[in-house]
């Protein structure tokens, strides 16, 4: 088996990673054509501009646009990127037509979230951004194909924080909890401790029927209240 330049560069990058020289590893991954790994390495070390370039080369234009808009504040480049290249969802496409439609709708929603972040960075009118966050809350509550875009909730939270609308953050988390997203209450509690300094207080499931139903639907998560319930 001949040693191709790509395989040698990949091995070199792997050795650089083991030695702790992440910049050199990312450079070698980029030369070898493994753009996604290069972008993750750049991102882990803080070189966001290089990470955006490599995400774009790897076809993950939504993530590249997010880095440009959120971490670098360069809304113009992010918008150009989103308009120029549609995201390539990869080979894991669902077979049924309805699933494909739903998945495409959720990916479009993610792109709109990125555009909303660009609006906030630009300082332009925020009506579209508010509409997008409404749709995000709707989607999280209905749990439509949210497993395909795990960064929908954190990015929407970041957009709401950038708009300095902590009430929208709470609404988004509440939609996640109602929709049964995995460990949504824990994430809300962590956010609340970090930003507000107070632990989360959620209503008791026995208060009313709607709360009990929502609690029953949030399968897979620990009990709502950060304090153990007396059951």
């Amino acid at each position: 088996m001949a040693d191709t330049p790509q395989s040698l560069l990949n091995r070199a990058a792997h050795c650089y990673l083991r030695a702790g020289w992440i910049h050199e590893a990312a450079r070698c991954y980029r030369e070898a054509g493994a753009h996604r790994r290069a972008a993750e390495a750049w991102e882990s070390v803080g070189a966001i501009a290089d990470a955006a370039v490599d995400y774009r080369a790897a076809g993950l234009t939504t993530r590249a646009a997010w880095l440009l808009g959120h971490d670098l504040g360069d809304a113009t480049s992010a918008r150009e990127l989103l308009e120029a290249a549609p995201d390539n969802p990869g080979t894991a496409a669902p077979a049924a037509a309805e699933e494909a439609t739903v998945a495409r709708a959720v990916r479009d929603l993610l792109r709109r979230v990125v555009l909303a972040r660009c609006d906030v960075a630009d300082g332009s009118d925020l009506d579209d951004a508010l509409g997008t966050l409404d749709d995000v809350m709707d989607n999280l509550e209905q749990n439509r194909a949210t497993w395909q875009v795990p960064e929908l909730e954190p990015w929407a939270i970041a957009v709401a924080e950038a708009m300095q609308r902590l009430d929208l953050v709470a609404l988004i988390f509440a939609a996640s909890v109602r929709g049964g997203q995995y460990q949504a209450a824990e994430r809300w509690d962590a956010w609340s401790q970090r930003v507000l300094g107070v632990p989360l207080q959620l209503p008791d499931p026995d208060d009313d029927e709607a709360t009990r139903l929502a609690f029953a639907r949030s399968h897979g998560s620990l009990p709502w209240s950060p304090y153990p319930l007396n059951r």
Partner: protein
Amino acid sequence: MPPRSGQRPPPHSSYRGVPEELRPGSSSPADAELVADPIADSDGSAPSPASPEASPLPIRPAATTRPTVELAVRFTSPALAARCLGRFLDVAARPSVLRDADSWWVLAHIPLDLGREISELAGGVGYIRSGSSVLPDHGWGAPPTSAGPGAVDIGTLADTPLLDLVIAAGLYQRPGLSLQTAVILTSAARAGGLLQRALDLRLTATFRPLLVRPRLPSPEPEVAEPEVAAPDADEEAEDVAGTLIEVRLEVGQNRPQLPAALLTALDADRQVLVCRQASPELLVQHNRFSPLTDVQLQAILSGDRWIVADPPYGCWTFESLADYAEGWQLTTMQKCHQLTAGQTGFADPRTTAHATLPDAKPLAVVPASRADGPLDAILLDAGELRAVRLLLEGHPLAEVAVLVPGRDQFLLLAGGGIVDRIPVGRYLTRVGSEPIYIAHGWRTEPALPAAAWRSLFGGLGDRALVIEPERTLVFDLSAQRPVWELWAGELPEIDDQIPEDAKGLLAELDAETTPAPPAPRRSSPTPAARPEPETSARRGIRRFVQRLGGKGPATPVQPTWREQAWTAEQGGDLVGAARIYDVHGDSLRAARLYEWAASEATQPAPGSGPG
């Protein structure tokens, strides 16, 4: 709507009667007894025949509702009638259509309960034919057999062809359907723009011209009329015939269906008709449906090829004038794209026997954009050499580094690069797989690939090159010494502490165990001339004696893995050296060697390319 039969549902006991006894108004003494005495019957006693001529009654008449009858369904709206006709076409034989002044009738031979279901679903009123009239049907029970109020004489109804009903029913609209294939009919002037737009959207577009004539749908094909018939009608038909371009759009790989915006925009355009292809001979307007299905419509409209559409387009027959052509075939090359002979003045004039070659650009060394990579070598002069001695004593680099002495400059190297920065000398970076070094943080202008280095400084052999901005130095790698020789110096004088008599004892032992050779033995214990083969035991003793005496060959020392790697690197096997470093955990040196090997592998071997 004629009233239903006024008969009450018969009581349970009457099911014991024969069918003739169930006619309304028929009352025989036997019936009266049976009907009026249910309690006596329910006692279980057999009903006594009231009249002697009555035969033994069967328990329950079988299949009174399943005979095939001729069912007529009456509608006021032609659309409902057409829908019912469509269902009859699927399940019944010989459906026909009649009409009178204010309603439409659909007749078919059909099993009774199936027919009743269909007429209920269609929203019509059911009639059963008996004789020359149709009788209103209750909707349950046995079919009516005697004329009563509400019967209609068939003679008063006019027989109409099925297509009249279809035409009267028309098309209804169902918006928002998606298509994978659309057939668009338009004039030639508009077709060009449409094909252009389709190509822009990456749709597969083909087109062909059609000859169309406006006609109402009829089942007879348009045959050439004999001269006996009115020739004016024929010329008239020729006058109204016209041509249209049929543009056929199909989706490519990148879409599941045609873009809805395009179809909506074309729907709104009065000069363009968007159709779906129900069959190769039937085109129906997009989003329009007849109460009959496409298949049934095609079955009724056999004969010509039809285009069925709402006003303002109307219905047409078409025939094809040519085969399908690809949409992009409408593109022609402009004059500027045609091939012409080359223009003189573009090529250099041929002045000498050889071609005019471009001027060579001198190689310059300029600062690079990044200066924080790992270090590969260090250039030292004599004063710094003394500092190196102090710095590297006890440093782990002392085990691996080698020093290449020159006239007044020295080169410090290590396998896989120095990588640790020591604060003396000028830092150097290796350019690739060749031992050519450039000042760290600088690069060549223009940047050269590995093959260029091989040919520019070809045949380096055992030499290393150092390229600085203003000079190039050459070092002889065969003169390399380990760097610890700077301070380690010569071995001290060895004073072997073996007592004299032990030496003599060992010499005697040696003499006894060595067989007497034919040649005279020498007294010196050097192993230079040993004629006989000796056993390993004798060799071991001799060597032991020699080592004690400080003379003779040293113990063969196995090379360490670092030495193996260094040897491999100098021999040109960079991948092997990298593997050794990788296996032993020195990841950074392994990474540098893999990178140099990759730059060597990128270029083909010299002589394998053209020329």
